[in-house]
């Protein structure tokens, strides 16, 4: 009999367990990086050895992302986008996590992970064509090691498990990150993925962007228990971090990815943050939450917090801030231009995308479609 695919002996292995009042001291070294508020301790910050330049890059990407998000809103209001899903408040979680992954690592995003896509170098104007209704797929995942945005909530989580299993089988030293909201943890797919990942001990970092809301449903009506604590039930560790502190997210996800690459298995990071805007431009949050609900989170603005960190390091000055802000403006402009100049694909191209090896019947259907179309188009 061949050696079995290395599954952990869940009966024998003692699952890492939390202490009585916090899952952040799960006995694993990553949890130990955090203080009681889920923020990187000064000691861990020194150990993580994150240079000023790295932190400035994170800051820059967050500012750019925030500006692109604003431009998304503008474009939607101007009728140029069918829908926009703002991610303001998520910049630290998305930029921190995406930049923590090695360029050779893969990321499986959820629909709100626009800033992650930006970090991966995907042209924002191209991404936005999705929200303009031009396409369902705006980038080549293999080129950016960045899977497509997935709309059915939670379903991307087990995709990442499968991919990570492939990485393990290929022994190619790749770690995988998967993003999802706290609402996604209610889905069956999320759970199946957590268990699969643990049983197969795959190199996967689960990143929950817990923004307190799933459209109008608040956290407490969505999730019972603490999300970070759930990892223990699957025999692997999880931590809740301050998801508005980019440095913390970056350091923790990097450590979790390193751990995964060492073959130590999956890790769950719950990044607490807040959805400061509407769910999407179709939403009306005034129906279910007040300004007072949002207020406490304003002090937790990811960009300001990062600026403060840079200031504390003496690595922030007006010239830098100005340069970043100008870059953000330019990128917003470029995105708008790219978006507005993007061609509507020929409708018949929809037929070409269905299969890699399309059956003749579909090619015939395409030909008939074009034939039926042409007179109309000619009109």
């Amino acid at each position, binding site marked *: 009999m061949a050696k079995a695919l290395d599954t952990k002996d869940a009966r024998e292995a003692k699952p890492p367990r939390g202490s009585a009042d916090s899952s952040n001291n799960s006995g694993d070294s990553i949890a130990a990086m955090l203080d009681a508020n889920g923020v990187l301790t000064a000691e861990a910050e020194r150990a993580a050895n994150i240079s000023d330049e790295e932190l400035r890059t994170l800051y820059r990407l967050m500012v750019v992302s925030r500006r692109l998000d604003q431009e998304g809103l503008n474009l939607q209001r101007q009728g140029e986008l*069918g*829908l926009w899903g703002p991610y303001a408040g998520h910049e630290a979680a998305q930029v921190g996590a995406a930049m923590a992954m090695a360029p050779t690592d893969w990321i499986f995003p959820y629909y709100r992970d626009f800033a992650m896509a930006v970090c991966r170098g995907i042209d924002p104007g191209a991404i936005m064509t*999705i*929200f*303009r*209704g*031009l*396409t*369902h797929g705006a980038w080549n995942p293999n080129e950016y090691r960045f899977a497509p945005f997935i*709309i*059915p*909530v*939670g379903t991307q989580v087990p995709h990442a498990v499968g991919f990570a299993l492939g990485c393990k089988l290929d022994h190619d030293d790749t770690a995988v990150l998967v993003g999802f909201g706290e*609402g*996604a943890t*209610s*889905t*069956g*797919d999320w759970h199946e993925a957590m268990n699969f990942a643990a049983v197969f001990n795959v190199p996967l970092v689960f990143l929950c962007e817990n923004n307190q809301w*799933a*459209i*109008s*449903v608040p956290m407490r*009506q*969505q*999730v019972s228990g603490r999300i970070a604590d759930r990892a223990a039930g699957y025999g692997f560790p999880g931590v809740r971090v301050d998801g508005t502190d980019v440095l913390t997210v970056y350091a923790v996800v990097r450590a979790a990815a390193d751990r995964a690459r060492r073959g130590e298995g999956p890790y769950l990071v719950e990044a607490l943050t807040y959805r400061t805007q509407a769910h999407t431009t*179709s*939403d*009306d949050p005034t*129906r*279910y939450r007040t300004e007072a609900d949002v207020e406490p989170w304003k002090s937790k603005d990811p960009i300001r917090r990062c600026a403060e960190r840079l200031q504390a390091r003496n690595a922030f000055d007006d010239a830098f801030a100005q340069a970043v802000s100008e870059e953000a403006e330019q990128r917003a402009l470029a995105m708008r231009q790219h978006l507005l100049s993007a061609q*509507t*694909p020929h*409708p018949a191209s*929809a*037929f070409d*995308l*269905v299969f890699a090896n399309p059956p003749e*019947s*579909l090619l015939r*259907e*395409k030909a008939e*479609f074009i034939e*039926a*179309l042409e007179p*109309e188009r000619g009109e």
Partner: protein
Amino acid sequence: MAKTMETTTGATNVSTVTMGKALNLALHDALQNDSRVLIFGEDVGKLGGVFRVTDGLQDEFGAERVFDTPLAEATIAATALGLAMKGFRPVAEMQFDAFSYPSFQQVTSNIAKYHTRTGGACNMQLVIRIPYGGNIGAIEQHSESPETYYIHTAGLKVVTPSTPADAYALLTAAIADPDPVIFLEPKSRYWMRQEIALPMPPAALDKARIAREGSDATVIAYGPTVQTALAAAEQAAAEGTSLEVIDLRSLSPLDMETISASVRKTRRAVVVHEAPVFMGLGAEIAARVMHDLFDVLAAPVERIGNATIPYPPARVEKLFLPDADRILEAVDRTREY
């Protein structure tokens, strides 16, 4: 949602409402008339649903009767099953067509089979509301027409309204029916307005409706395509062709009597839906009509629907949706046959 204009005439309450509002009124009246009715799903509470169909209901009836659930459609459906066993009349909402798929196993393997499985002892008196269809400029997964999946599953009743009045009457009947009803709401028609008079006589769950009488050909439509078919009929009339339009209302079972009677008269038929033609409901209707009226028909039955592709991006969707022109071309094919 537009404001309703109400005029009270004796016991009758006449108002012009959108389909969304008509559904809202049906839910309201069901909650009011039957204390066992419960409404739940994602965002149906304070938000009133992403299409506002449950607007105001939690406020009026309380969060024990109208409540939000976690994001888990399989368990939304399963919860409806369990509540029905406890004697409640659950009305569960799936937020969009494609998001009913996680509940597919619960619906197909349990809800549809539970009455059989309990030797008839347990009624599945429950309704699953699903906004469906395209033509709203949405992103992926928000424009699906999943009716085939439900229609093919024995043990379910599947209905869909095309007007505010039918929306009210069918939803009321669905809630009152002792069997599980998949209630498909044509989301592109949520904003369609019509004058309705309440109270309304109960609707039969398995009867089609002649939406317009005609003599030259029958156009069989349902949900979102009924208005399209009526528009085509209007256009045809201007050109001297008389189209009969059937609004199926019930997709399972099919009201073959109404369909056959019409086609017997017109000798020509076109079926129109947004779902792909391949294995869409048009297949069953065309097969039955051609089988039953083989000698009567002047031409084969034509079918209109989506191509055999995943629902296309919003900017090109119109080219894949049935429109009056495509219907008229199909009618022409049956007339020029």
